[in-house]
């Protein structure tokens, strides 16, 4: 099973480095989509199914918190797994994100091996991966 992934971060450097790090994970990658903010991500999700979203918090246009609220309000996308990858260190924000059903949080800078391990643990079980 190949997994489709979506990286949402306003930094192209981070999107590219995450792509590289994902190559280390022992999962079969399908398509890896990119979006520079929450709005771009929502627009993309109207057309494409992904198995896991990597989400930054501080972004222009639509930040990660707003994206999560909107995502959870869309029936077809409500259960889509989201992994936060951000510099955010506030437990208050973490609690808000957990209420919105995120799968986990990795603080930048993220080690490639931590990313690979976390992705494998999230996708290791059930998934809706593209074949």
């Amino acid at each position, binding site marked *: 099973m190949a997994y489709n992934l979506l990286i949402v971060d306003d*930094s*192209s*450097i*981070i999107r*590219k*480095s995450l792509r*590289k790090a994902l190559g280390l994970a022992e999962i079969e990658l399908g398509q890896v989509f990119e979006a520079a903010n929450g709005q771009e991500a929502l627009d993309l999700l109207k057309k494409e199914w992904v198995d896991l979203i990597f989400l930054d918090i*501080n972004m222009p246009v639509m930040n990660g918190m707003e994206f999560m609220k909107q995502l959870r309000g869309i029936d077809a996308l409500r259960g889509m797994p989201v992994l936060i990858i*951000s*510099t*955010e*260190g*506030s*437990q*208050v*924000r973490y609690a808000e994100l957990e209420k919105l059903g995120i799968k986990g949080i990795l*603080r*930048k*800078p993220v*080690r490639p091996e931590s990313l690979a391990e976390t992705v494998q643990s999230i996708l290791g079980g059930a998934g809706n991966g593209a074949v």
Partner: protein
Amino acid sequence: MVQFEHPIQKVTEFVLTEWAMMLIEPAEAPEETFSADRPFLNVTVNYQGVFDGELTIICQRGFVDLLARNVLGIDSDHPVKPGEEWDALRELANIVSGNFLAEAYGTEVVFDLPSFKTAETDFQGSLPFFRSEHVGRSTAFYLADGEPVFVCFDIRASEY
């Protein structure tokens, strides 16, 4: 055990080694270490929360070129694309700021990082950062893979 004078030094060292994969050594006298005749690049992050302030990183092209190459895994035979150097510098500021605020003020408080400003300046334009000595200010200065990088953390004067 290393004793850091200020969390800004601990965090800067951590991010430069862990994320940027650079070899670093503490440096002194930025006015003499930077090349005065080459352009200076800086990025400033304004943060807002229980108090407001800003964090500025000052460097030159040699540093951002190495930074972008290390983060993207680009070897010296291939050019870094236009814009990627600034993107790398902004992201460095983002990661240093986020980690610094949590390290210095704990995880029970919330800060927003609403804006990043980048600018190319010259030696004279950078001097105020090197020379300022007001109370709410702390700095870190390193050679990263031999290239100087200066980090300045500033609480707004009205906040301390």
